[in-house]
């Protein structure tokens, strides 16, 4: 069975991507973080390790809120996208 990447999985989903960004991170905190929980708990791989810090994208966010709960450094400011935007599950 071919392993499917998260990016390819997200490409079959319907999103209404908002221009307003609903995730913000405090990069200086991420630089000193000792666990980078966000990259493991995000099912959409929105967070990536880069030069010891974190880069993120919000477009593929599945709005589960895992990052917000798992980050205990207060580095992630995650909110829900504006109503009507974001993931639209066809099946759920």
């Amino acid at each position, binding site marked *: 069975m071919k392993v499917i990447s998260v990016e390819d999985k997200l490409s079959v989903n319907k999103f209404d991507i908002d221009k307003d960004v609903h995730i913000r991170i405090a990069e200086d905190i991420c630089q000193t973080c000792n666990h980078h929980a966000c990259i493991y708990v995000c099912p959409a791989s929105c967070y990536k390790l880069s030069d010891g810090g974190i880069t993120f994208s919000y477009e593929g966010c599945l709005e589960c809120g895992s990052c917000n709960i798992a980050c205990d450094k207060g580095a992630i400011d995650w909110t829900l996208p*504006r109503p009507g935007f974001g993931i639209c599950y066809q099946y759920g």
Partner: protein
Amino acid sequence: MNIIVCVKQVLDPDIPPAKFRVDSASKKVVPPEGIPPVINPYDAQAVELALRLKEKHGGKISVLTVGSNGADKVVKHAISMGADEGVVLSDETFEGSDSFSVAYILSKAIEKIGEYDLVLCGRQAADWDEGLVGSVVAENLGTSLVTLAEDAEAVDDGLKVKRVTLDGYQVFVVPLPAVVTVSNEVGQARLPSGLGIISAARRQIPVWKAEDLGVDPSLVGSTAARRKLFALSVPARERKCEIIEGETPAEAATKLAVRLREAGAI
């Protein structure tokens, strides 16, 4: 100023290509189950222009749509943006109508409403991109017509319309009543307000059938269509990704330029 806006429900343009399917045998698009159609984005912009005109000059905005299942949703969307009222034009005989027949049905409904100064349509629908309906409605109603409007305002002798051209714009003054098709340059359609959504949600949208409109059944439906669709298929898409690397940005850019030239892209 009393404005009638014609809107169409289209397949949500934000569905990913993977969800887009056609049935080649029946030559129809198969809408993805569970993803409701939306208001044609150009039509939402026509509603936006109508709202701006109403804010400036007062009056009433009525919305018309031709369609069956769930078509009231797009009328409700326009109402949630701020339109005053709307009607769904729906009848079994309308099924399979082409743009000419749709324009005929709309014209009948507009005549039934009677009092209007302006009819607005989106420049084209995001599904078939034909851009015919507005023009044919003007022809049917015998009014003046301006296409591709990016702005409009009422003046003493009618409506001043700014029309988009390839590298600039034209300004027309047309007598009212008139039909104007609205281009995307009008700017983003406003999002519905909370109270607008609630007001629309509790509204029952009236339905006018063929007999309410005095529509001649021989002029609508698939049998009246002036064109036949020959074939329908999803084009095969191929995509390739190459990563061009370099020690410095300048080196990477040079390699990229060489590669693009090889590929005949530049």
